[in-house]
């Protein structure tokens, strides 16, 4: 046999490659405490049964050793052997009848009690596990509900805000725009009035009409001057010009007559406040500021 040869060769080289060591056994498990102790008779009966079983086992073992066939290296043979073994096992399962563990009711009682205890402890484990699971689920539910409440609160606040905004929007569009515009107009009017007043004040203060005193000063220089009693103030001149521009924009020219004091007319023209008519030198108009 080939395997034998290999063994011999290995041994002759004196190098046993394979080592074999043993790992310590697990300590024998403590015997499960019996729920109720069996009576002596029952124990003896069980013992006898075990003896009988073991004797049968030994007998079978001897049979196996005696019947040990020559080992086949051929894989095909191995497959056939396997098939045979499986078939034999199948047959055995089919013919096998369930047999009672023991006929002694006392033994059965103890075994049953043991089984029930085992089942009980397992179920207790399941119970505690389920309880723990339930507790965690409850916690989760609580936190989820809290979360939901928060979200609802947020939603409520958001909706409220939206409604408020919408209302405000509507109010703005109808009423407040009008009010706003009115206010603006009023503001503009006020502004204009103020400007006008200021202008009138400035003109009244700094551009007075020539009076007799001033004429008297000038008379000292021997400059004879006719004083027109009908002269209108600069204020009125400007008013005329502005009104003319606003009333008849197509023809804003005003004719200069004797009521206009020439120095003021000249000043208006020089400072670019008024403009002469390009063809008629007796007509002036307000400079186009707009």
């Amino acid at each position, binding site marked *: 046999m080939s395997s034998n040869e*290999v063994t011999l060769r290995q041994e002759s080289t004196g190098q046993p490659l394979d080592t074999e060591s043993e790992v310590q056994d697990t300590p024998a498990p403590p015997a499960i405490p019996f729920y109720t102790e069996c009576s002596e008779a029952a124990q003896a009966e069980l013992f006898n049964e075990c003896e009988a079983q073991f004797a049968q086992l*030994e007998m079978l073992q001897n049979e196996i050793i005696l019947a040990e066939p020559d080992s086949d290296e051929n894989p095909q043979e191995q497959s056939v*052997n396997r098939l045979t073994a499986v078939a034999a096992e199948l047959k055995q399962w089919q013919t096998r009848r369930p047999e009672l563990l023991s006929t002694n009711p006392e033994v059965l009682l103890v075994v049953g009690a043991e089984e029930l205890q085992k089942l009980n402890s397992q179920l207790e484990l399941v119970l505690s596990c389920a309880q723990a699971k339930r507790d965690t689920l409850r916690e989760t539910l609580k936190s989820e509900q809290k979360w939901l409440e928060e979200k609802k609160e947020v939603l409520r606040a958001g909706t409220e805000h939206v409604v408020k905004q919408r209302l405000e929007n509507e109010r703005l569009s109808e009423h407040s725009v009008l009010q706003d515009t009115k206010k603006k107009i009023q503001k503009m009017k006020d502004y204009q009035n103020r400007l006008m007043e200021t202008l009138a004040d400035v003109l009244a203060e700094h551009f007075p009409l020539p009076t007799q005193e001033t004429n008297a000063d000038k008379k000292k220089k021997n400059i004879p001057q006719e004083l027109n009693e009908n002269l209108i103030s600069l204020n009125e001149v400007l008013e005329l010009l502005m009104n003319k521009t606003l009333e008849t924009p197509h023809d804003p020219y005003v004719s200069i007559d004797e009521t206009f004091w020439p120095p003021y007319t000249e000043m208006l023209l020089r400072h670019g406040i008024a403009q002469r008519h390009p063809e008629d030198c007796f007509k002036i108009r307000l400079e186009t500021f707009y």
Partner: protein
Amino acid sequence: MSLLKPFSKLPGLNTANIMLVENEEQFQQKLADTVVLQEKTVNVNVRLARSLPLPVENEESRPRIDLVVFIIHLTSELSFQSAETSLKYLDPGYFQGKVCFLVTNARNVSVPPERLVSVRKLAASLHCPLLCAEDQTTEGVTTAAHRLLAILKVAAGLVPMATGLYLSTLTRCTVPSGIDQQNFE
């Protein structure tokens, strides 16, 4: 006697014996400790070996081995070859649900994919289950130990209504016809 036989000895009472065969001896000790620690209701003996055949002098003291696990590191070619040669020293009876392959480093990028395929083919040809394990993390070792124990208990006959042969017909490794060397190139 060079062949390791599954039924040459009487089984121990409430005892299961597992043998871890690993050429490199890196992983087996860690796995053995974890296996022993994991199981509380059954006496588990773990035996370690580099390769088969086992030395003759221990023949007498060696208990009946219920499950032989070949640990194969995909990173080394030698690991696979060693397992392949060791397989010859197993009685064919072992291949009826008492052998299992444990592969590590399957996710390593540097491993040529053909190696895993060849291990799968080997396991499939012997009708054995093939487990993949992570040997670097504690969690991976625990998982591997857990899975081995499940198989071991069945193989040792400690699970009522289940036998190793029956389990192996369900868990044996199969190689889909599509997987070939060409597909990986």
